[in-house]
């Protein structure tokens, strides 16, 4: 495919800092979000506003509650307190399935692909809700079955081509190398037409050149689809490079929010990552 490489244009959005840009229509708003798991406040008083085309990094030490935030957004857990507004609509009481249909798609920290399905089928499975033929059409192979299947296959290949994976569309997903599996998870999430894409450590286990490639791909996805992306990542070069805003979590609490530059010089963040000097000396 001869796609021309789109130039990355930073979107002028500062909605992570609502006091500076209150007018911009946010796609996702978390207000006072919190959950208690096993008596512990895994996430508490979490507030975040994400603009329509913003890339937000969610960082923090291990066990800070980052993945829990994703699980709250996708309703794997129902929040104990607070509200999540998606496109201004309260998602209260929605299930994982409904939230996905409303526009949130995610990838997983521990890769969760449909291992025995082919790469293309993994993507097509995610397009299920935009296909309409019924079981009878499928059994009798009626024309609308063929039409929709062909269209779905084309679209799946097109999506796969973002990551240059269209050549391995028929390979079982479980046999792909690690990096390709992570990329396939992103494609599968994109296939559900999300307005917010949640990436849970997409660069985990990748070497520096793979990470650099991934960075390009995420930008490409962002520019092509004009969607909001929330990214959990430990690779700081990736986060600082790509994100419009960053939110730092520690022990379930937001300890800092701001632009990459602001975060890098924030003493609370440095403390969370490196520990306080006195404590370090003690231990």
């Amino acid at each position, binding site marked *: 495919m001869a796609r021309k490489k789109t130039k990355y244009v930073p979107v002028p959005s500062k909605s992570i800092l609502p006091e500076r840009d209150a007018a911009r229509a946010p796609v996702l708003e978390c207000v006072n979000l919190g959950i208690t798991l096993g008596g512990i406040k895994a996430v508490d008083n979490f507030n975040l506003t994400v603009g329509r085309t913003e890339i937000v990094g969610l960082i923090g030490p291990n066990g800070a509650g980052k993945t829990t935030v994703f699980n709250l957004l996708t309703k794997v857990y129902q929040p104990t307190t607070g509200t999540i507004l998606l496109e201004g609509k309260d998602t209260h009481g929605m299930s994982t399935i409904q939230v996905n249909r409303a526009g949130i798609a995610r990838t997983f920290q521990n890769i969760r692909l449909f291992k025995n399905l082919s790469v293309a089928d993994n993507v097509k499975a995610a397009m299920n809700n935009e296909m309409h033929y019924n079981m009878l059409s499928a059994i009798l192979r009626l024309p609308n079955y063929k039409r*929709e299947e062909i269209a779905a296959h084309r679209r799946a290949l097109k999506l796969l081509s973002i990551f240059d994976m269209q050549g391995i569309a028929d390979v079982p997903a479980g046999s792909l190398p690690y990096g390709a599996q992570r990329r396939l998870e992103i494609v599968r999430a994109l296939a559900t037409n999300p307005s917010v894409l949640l990436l849970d450590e997409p660069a985990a286990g990748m070497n520096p050149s793979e990470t650099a490639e991934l960075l390009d791909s995420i930008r490409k996805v962002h520019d092509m689809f004009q969607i909001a992306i929330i990214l959990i990542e430990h690779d700081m070069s990736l986060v600082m490079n790509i994100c419009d805003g960053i939110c730092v979590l520690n022990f379930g609490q937001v300890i800092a929010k701001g632009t990459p530059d602001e975060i890098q010089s924030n003493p609370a963040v440095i403390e969370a990552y490196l520990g306080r000097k006195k404590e370090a000396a003690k231990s």
Partner: protein
Amino acid sequence: MMTMKRLINLKRAEARRIYLTYAVVIIAYVVCQIMSSTKFFSSSMRGMLVPICAYMVMAVSLNLVVGILGELSLGHAGFMSVGAFAGVTSAILMQGTITNAPVRLALAMIIAAIFAAIAGFLIGIPVLRLKGDYLAIVTLAFGEIIKSILNNFYLGVDSQGLHFSMLSDTTRLLKGGRLIIRGPMGISGIQKIATFPAGFVLLMIALMIVFNLVNSRSGRAFMAIRDDRIAAESIGLDITKYKMMAFVMSAAIAGAAGALFAMNYSTIVANKFDFNTSILILVFVVLGGQGNMLGGIIAAAVLTILPEKLRQFSEYRMLLYAVVLIVMMLATNNAEIRAFLSGLNPFRRKEEAE
């Protein structure tokens, strides 16, 4: 690179396997037809053709739930018995109006499928909310409940229409009426209208339904749920809906198989479709390879013929059957034993050396 190329061929291999399955079934049918017309078959062998077809269809049906959807059902014989009783009853009721036996058989099988699908739907509502072993035990429970109910169910017909009762016969039929289902005595005096060609057609239809379903959006959803339920939810697949779909479709196929099976005998009782029958069908599926339709079909044929062929060792045949089962499971699932066996097989060795 070599492996990559081999992997790309997998998808085509899958399509080939589907055609191979159809081809094997058609060839086997033709061969059996020729052999049975040349009197090569013993009469006991000929009598087994229809039950074998019914068990093959059951294997395909259960494979949809166990192999494709990835849920364990231990009560599949229950759907078979619902189909058997509904099918035979409707065939008896249609005896006067539809004199063409094949048409009556086809209609009876369709009615059986509908009744079994309804049973599947009703059972599916509670069952599919559960997971894993709990789902399995509840299907077992439902299988037993269906058996108990049919064992105590009386249904008769007279000029006033249908009458039924539970526990004891209180249908009080008018003169000239006929008691069709007689509780633990089941149904007797069945016209044996099930034929080998009908069994073959049913098997082909069952295969077509399952294969075409698997290669559609529903089939992808079934397999996605099987491979990773959480990921399937995250892409908006309605888990309950698809599980229900697979379950009901599987029940319907099992119902049609039950009707075919029942109309090969003059008498049918609910106890024929007990837990052991459910397990027998599960064994077909597992030995044939989960999700592998052809494997299940072959296993159904072999395991139905084998005990008959072993009749001269009648005392030992079930024991042998048990040993075969255990050894097969150990051989296919234990890495060390498998390595040992493949070492014995000269062809396999050559292939791996390449």
